């Protein structure tokens, strides 16, 4: 099955470990990814907080490109996926706005019809690919490890525009973790926010909010935190040192992985192919336990 791969700003400009691990693992599951020529920012943020038409135009523009390719749109980032889902929903309900957006798109010869199919990584791995295909692709199942799932706010809320998992009790990422041979467990902080959107206005608050989750994950005895959201990863992994300083706990160490990095390790792929050398959190002990390549 073929999909138009939408990376989004954050993944394509800095979260290379996510992109690399997606590009190398998906084809092994029979998923063909096609890059989107001419793609641009989805608009969420900044335009969602600045100008509604600029936001809807930005999202519709990328959906129009995917429609032109005749492929379902697979957005890697939770925020981009939600931006597309919200825009699709709004333009369905507001034909006048849709016409306005199309008037703007016409300047680049684009047209948004509204028949694009949006696909989230939870759907692609959990619902479409499924357990059998994933488990048979593994050569190095992850035994003896217990991970906390971090689905991320924008993957599960708001349910009224249609999200890939349940708003209050998301389970798909947990399933995906267990399919790799590792354990997962519910924890009360699972659906809490990483706070990354606050980084623009109040950096310290982001670190305080993120620190709460890292403390909980550590206290509850998990071996690490697993996500598919580039914003969550950026905070929990890339900013883990700063979180330690802010909350005043140098020992607040939690290994953080993109799900597709763990999937790749379980497939027997090398760390470098999966961009794991870019993870800034202390992942080495977990990697030693996983072993393999």
């Amino acid at each position: 099955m073929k999909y138009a791969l939408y990376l989004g700003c954050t993944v394509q400009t800095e979260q290379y470990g996510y992109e690399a691990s997606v590009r190398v693992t998906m084809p092994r599951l029979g998923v063909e990814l096609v890059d989107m020529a001419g793609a641009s920012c989805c608009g969420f943020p900044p335009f969602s907080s600045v100008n509604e038409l600029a936001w809807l135009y930005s999202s519709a523009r990328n959906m129009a490109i995917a429609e032109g390719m005749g492929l379902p749109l697979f957005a890697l980032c939770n925020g981009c996926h939600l931006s597309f889902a919200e825009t699709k929903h709004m333009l369905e309900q507001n034909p006048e706005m849709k016409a306005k957006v199309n008037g703007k798109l016409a300047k680049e010869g684009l047209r948004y019809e509204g028949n694009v199919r949006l696909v989230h990584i939870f759907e692609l791995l959990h619902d479409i690919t499924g357990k059998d295909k994933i488990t048979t692709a593994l050569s190095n199942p992850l035994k003896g490890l217990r991970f906390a799932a971090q689905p991320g706010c924008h993957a599960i809320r708001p349910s009224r525009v249609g999200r890939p998992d349940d708003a209050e009790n998301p389970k798909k990422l947990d399933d995906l973790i267990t399919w790799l041979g590792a354990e997962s467990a519910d924890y009360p902080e699972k659906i809490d926010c990483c706070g990354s959107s606050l980084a623009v206005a109040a950096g310290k608050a982001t670190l305080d909010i993120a620190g709460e989750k890292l403390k909980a994950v550590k206290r509850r005895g998990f071996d690490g935190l697993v996500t598919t959201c580039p914003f969550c990863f950026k905070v929990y992994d890339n900013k883990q040192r700063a979180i330690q300083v802010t909350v005043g706990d140098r020992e607040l160490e939690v290994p953080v992985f993109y799900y597709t990095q763990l999937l790749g390790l379980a497939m027997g792929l090398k760390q470098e192919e999966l961009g794991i050398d870019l993870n800034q959190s202390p992942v080495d002990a977990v990697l030693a336990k996983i072993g393999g390549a």
Partner: protein
Amino acid sequence: MTQKKSPKAVFQANAEACDQCGKCPSSCPVTIHVEGFNPRQIIAKVALGREADLMKSQVIWTCTSCLKCKERCPEEISPYDVIQALRRIAIYLELPHPEGYDASVKAVVETGVVQQPQLVRTRSKERKDRKSMGLPPAEKPRDMAAYTETLREILGEETV
């Protein structure tokens, strides 16, 4: 100078329906960590027609878009969307707002992305970019001039 639309004219919040149940602040991660931020109070002020006070304060810039209030509000008010609308009007009226927004808007309008591909560090302090990661060049609009012009036109219109 053109007469800018008044915030009221473009503002549609169902704030009067709020029964002050408190579900939003009890869900809100920012209410716990930042003193003075409370989505229920924001809705109460909007219901009283005091949007102007909110737009002038820094409070509206402190929501972290977790969407719990939007998900859980029994009246489907969505403090989140109200806050986003207040931000749009505040920027339109050129009221003070975090600088980061202007920088992001400028970058997207001029280059199609929020930032250019970064050099990142490995744990052993090695530098990596898309090329050394074996990733293809980043995408951007093919007709950048048309794209930039369209966004400029939209941002120059009297809408928020």
